[in-house]
């Protein structure tokens, strides 16, 4: 759900929020060093494996139709049902249909970004179904009625005191600020949910085309329980989340957990191929819902590379902008650098033109991405698109022709420089200006601006050369 506030309002809120700031500092700092340590265990810091991981994703997407068809056929050969959803609404409708057809009333859910994207929970609840999030962080924010602020640690913005208070109020846990006690309380409460739910819904980290396998990666065990205890397992998957073979999967898994949490491998890496066979336990039905929701269109654009993303969250942790504003400011389900590209790509630059500008293009994201996605390139691409769609602020639109003229016509450039020099030197106090007029007033809100130098470089260079007896300007 898009917030009613504007982007700038959300940013302001975030920057004022001291608690958020502390939580972000702690979280991003920690994840960043965990990731660095994990990659240091490779002799080449993981360069070769990341190159290969990138190639796997690129190759897969370049033949996505073939691999997706192969995957779907293999899922069905293993006894699963495959549903194809072009839109978010279609995806939610299919889930509700499956639930109704099977007398499902209660649903337990594992963490899944794509289900957030389609607003599945809201649709299910509107259809009279109860949905409980089982991932601890997601469970916490569900109780709080909030949205996740980080792909990997959804409740990263909440302190343990806040969480203790929340669990006390919502599930009657005795008030405490000890995480182990809170976890035990949540475990007990959710155990009942797992064992009595009619359907378990999960996401998919990777689909493996050659075997029709769903790979689900997690640490808590809620993914395993969600996909084992209830009689129906429904997995929702973005159509781009494929790899061709199990070997390719093993490569991706080497970079995923390291990038996300600094682990070599998550506690549980589940490989699910079809529903229960003649097994002791497991779900009787497996449904895989393949979600397009704009991905096939993005595939045809200059920013198709964003589909390489494996949702590790490393770019969020590395991003100096995300570190300051957190996830909610981005206004959508996908936050941080990946969100700044994916959200406008999926939903259009018209509604999301500020996001690609909320970046200093520092490149820290590209540096940590396990599949080396060139996010800065795509942010620039989206800025170009936004400009052509008329989204550039008025003052900049007015200024551009002057800037262009000055930069392509040296005498105009020098005249402009002279004017600026004269003005700044007049207005400066001891060589500095403390107030610049709009639209540059943003600068002087927190910084001083120096007066232009009394003599330009080119003038001084010429004088220097003449003084030294050789002429050099041509």
């Amino acid at each position, binding site marked *: 759900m898009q917030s009613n506030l504007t982007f700038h309002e959300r940013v302001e809120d975030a920057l004022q929020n001291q608690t958020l700031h502390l939580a972000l500092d702690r979280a991003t700092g920690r994840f960043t060093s965990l990731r660095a340590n994990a990659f240091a265990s490779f002799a080449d810091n993981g360069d070769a494996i990341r190159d290969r991981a990138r190639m796997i994703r690129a190759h897969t997407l370049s033949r996505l139709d073939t691999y997706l068809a192969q995957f779907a056929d293999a899922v069905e050969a293993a006894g699963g049902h495959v549903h194809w959803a072009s839109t978010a609404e279609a995806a939610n409708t299919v889930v509700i249909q499956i639930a109704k057809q099977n007398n499902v009333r209660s649903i337990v859910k594992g963490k899944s970004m794509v289900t957030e994207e389609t607003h599945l929970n809201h649709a299910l609840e509107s259809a009279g179904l109860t949905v409980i999030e089982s991932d601890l962080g997601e469970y916490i924010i569900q109780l709080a009625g909030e949205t996740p602020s980080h792909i990997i640690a959804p409740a990263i913005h909440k302190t343990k005191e806040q969480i203790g208070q929340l669990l006390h109020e919502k599930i009657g846990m005795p008030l405490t600020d000890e995480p182990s006690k809170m976890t035990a309380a949540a475990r007990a409460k959710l155990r009942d949910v797992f064992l009595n739910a009619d359907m378990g819904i999960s996401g998919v980290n990777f689909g493996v085309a050659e075997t029709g396998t769903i790979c689900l990666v997690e640490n808590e065990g809620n993914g395993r329980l969600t996909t084992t205890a209830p009689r129906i397992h429904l997995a929702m998957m973005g159509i781009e989340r494929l790899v061709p073979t199990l070997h390719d999967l093993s490569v991706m898994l080497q970079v995923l957990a390291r990038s996300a949490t600094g682990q070599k491998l998550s506690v549980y890496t589940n490989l699910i191929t079809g529903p229960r066979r003649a097994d002791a336990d497991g779900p009787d039905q497996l449904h895989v819902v393949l979600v397009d929701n704009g991905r096939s269109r993005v595939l045809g654009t200059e920013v198709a590379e964003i589909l390489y993303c494996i949702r590790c969250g490393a770019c969020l942790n590395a991003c100096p902008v995300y570190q300051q504003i957190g996830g909610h400011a981005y206004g959508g389900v996908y936050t941080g650098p990946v969100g700044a590209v994916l959200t406008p790509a999926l939903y259009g630059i018209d509604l999301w033109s500020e996001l690609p500008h909320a970046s200093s293009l520092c490149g820290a994201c590209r540096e940590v991405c396990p599949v080396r996605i060139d996010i800065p390139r795509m942010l620039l691409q989206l800025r170009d698109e936004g400009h052509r769609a008329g989204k550039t602020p008025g003052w900049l639109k007015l200024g551009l022709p002057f800037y262009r003229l000055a930069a392509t016509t040296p005498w105009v*450039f020098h005249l402009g420089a002279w004017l600026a020099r004269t003005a700044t030197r007049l207005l400066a106090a001891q060589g500095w200006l403390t107030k610049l007029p709009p639209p540059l007033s943003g600068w002087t809100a927190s910084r001083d601006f120096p007066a232009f130098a009394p003599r330009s470089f080119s003038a001084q260079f010429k004088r220097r050369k003449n003084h030294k007896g050789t002429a050099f300007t041509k």
Partner: protein
Amino acid sequence: MPPASVQLFATCLIETIRPQAGLAVVEVLERLGLTVEYPDGQTCCGQPAFNAGAWDEARAMARHTLDVLCRDVPAGDVPPERLYDQLPPVVVPSGSCADMIFHHYPELLAGDPKYGPLAEAVAARTYEFTQFLVEVMGVRKVEAHFPGKLTYHPSCHLLRGLGVTEAPRTLLSNVAGADVVELPEATQCCGFGGLFAVKMSDISSAMLDRKLDAIEKTGAPTLVGCDVSCLLHIGGGLHRRGSRVETKHLAEILAGP
């Protein structure tokens, strides 16, 4: 064979706001025996327009800059791919402007029959200042003297765009008398980002605060960088805080007191 001369692309910020950095670059290069040409008509590399998504404007500025840097090529006779042999290296005392020319000029002008090849040829001979000293001239130590503590801020385009990580540090470490203190969280972006500093000024300021806190932690009275854009932003913040820390372009340190 080291080159005999270079073309200096001074950058608009050095031209107008910090000429002493440009003069220091000239000083250092001349001491190495190089002839420094300063092609007339230089203005701006066009990065602000490019970053704003105004790519038509950015292309116009790129074409202008390429004309300035290729003026002396004999017209017509020389095939574009031989331009590299004809003209001296372009030295740019700014990581972000060098990155603009090196990476983005060829991209922006890829379809242009005249300027596409020119962009490729110029990109192939464009270097950031410290990159040029160390990688082309093979110089790791310059006769320079600077007493006291220094701390170094690596600018993002230099560090990640061009991959120049060691050259500035090597040159600094060989400055006699200088006590180089490592800046905490050195590779964190200072928050300038061009127009980002104005359009997203609140986020930019928050990022700047973090950088300023780190600088103050070092106790160094001098902050050194290779990009006047970062120094403008950091220096402006330091001055607003009433700090005594001064910012200097690395060339100014190498040119000596």
